[in-house]
């Protein structure tokens, strides 16, 4: 009887890559960048709604991660760590934006609904994205992280620095508002 082939993991785990990078192998960190740059950019863009700022925040997040790689706790998730760094970089930028503009940040993103016919013509993904953009910031971020991390509420809570119960409540309310927005009903702040 032929022996079952030994399965060797071709894809090194994130934690292993961090350990290898800490030993001075730059290629290991490059793999982590390749794995997460798009997701981090997505989080930054959905939070900041500005291509240039999202680009800078993404770069800043990876730069900070690279410089403080030694503080990464073995056994924790790299994705959660890098998302948390990126989220804080975005918050700093939002605060700066608020300071320089002198105005309160809008609680809602600019929806720019346009003519109704145009909205109807949008495909489902575009409509959903527009609905997410129309959510208040706290809900929008939770939905974006849910999109990136799935049902890992604890990871989302870690990134946002919120209790898990709050994350679940925000997500529940966000989904309610999304449903109303997608069905065209009037949405009131909860």
């Amino acid at each position, binding site marked *: 009887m032929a022996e079952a082939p030994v399965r060797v993991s071709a894809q090194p785990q994130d934690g292993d890559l961090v350990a290898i990078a800490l030993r001075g192998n730059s290629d290991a960190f490059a793999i982590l*960048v*390749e794995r997460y740059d798009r997701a981090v950019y*997505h989080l930054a863009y959905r939070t900041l709604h500005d291509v240039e700022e*999202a680009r800078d925040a993404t770069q800043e997040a*990876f730069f900070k*991660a690279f410089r403080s790689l030694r503080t990464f706790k073995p056994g924790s998730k790299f994705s959660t760590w890098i998302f948390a760094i990126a989220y804080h970089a975005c918050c700093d930028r939002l605060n700066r934006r608020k300071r320089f503009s002198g105005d309160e940040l809008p609680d809602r993103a600019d929806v720019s609904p346009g003519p109704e016919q145009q909205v109807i013509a949008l495909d489902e993904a575009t409509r*959903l994205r527009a609905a997410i953009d129309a959510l208040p910031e706290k809900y929008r971020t939770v939905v974006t992280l849910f999109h990136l991390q*799935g049902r890992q509420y604890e990871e989302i809570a870690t990134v946002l620095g919120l209790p898990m119960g709050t994350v679940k409540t925000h997500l529940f309310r966000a989904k309610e508002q999304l*449903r109303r927005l997608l069905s065209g009903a009037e949405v009131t702040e909860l």
Partner: protein
Amino acid sequence: MTMDDRELERAILGLPLEEPPQGLRASILLATAYRPGPAFSVGELVALGSLGAVALWLGIMLVLGGGSLFVHTLQTIGSTLSRTLSNAGVLAWLAAGGATAIWLTLFSGWQPVAAVSHRSERSASR
């Protein structure tokens, strides 16, 4: 469009990620993993600084004392060096120190030449 909870979650999870701007990954890598090293290492800077200091010292001596002081100083340095290096005890200590350094290098697996050439190869390939 009415969706139940499961459908809505599936739709959110199925959304495509934003397309990052071109060159983002390259700029991140250039700022982090593949950041070009400094033009001079610490050792090279120390060596260059020492050489500069010696040159300055010799220059000041030339200006202050003329050629004779300069020649005299060089003679003194030369004779001290030759006296030191012709001493069997000093040479034995130097040999012992060198041998220990080589042994420690083998023991720790540190290969400065290989490391430098690896870095240069990668810089060249980029």
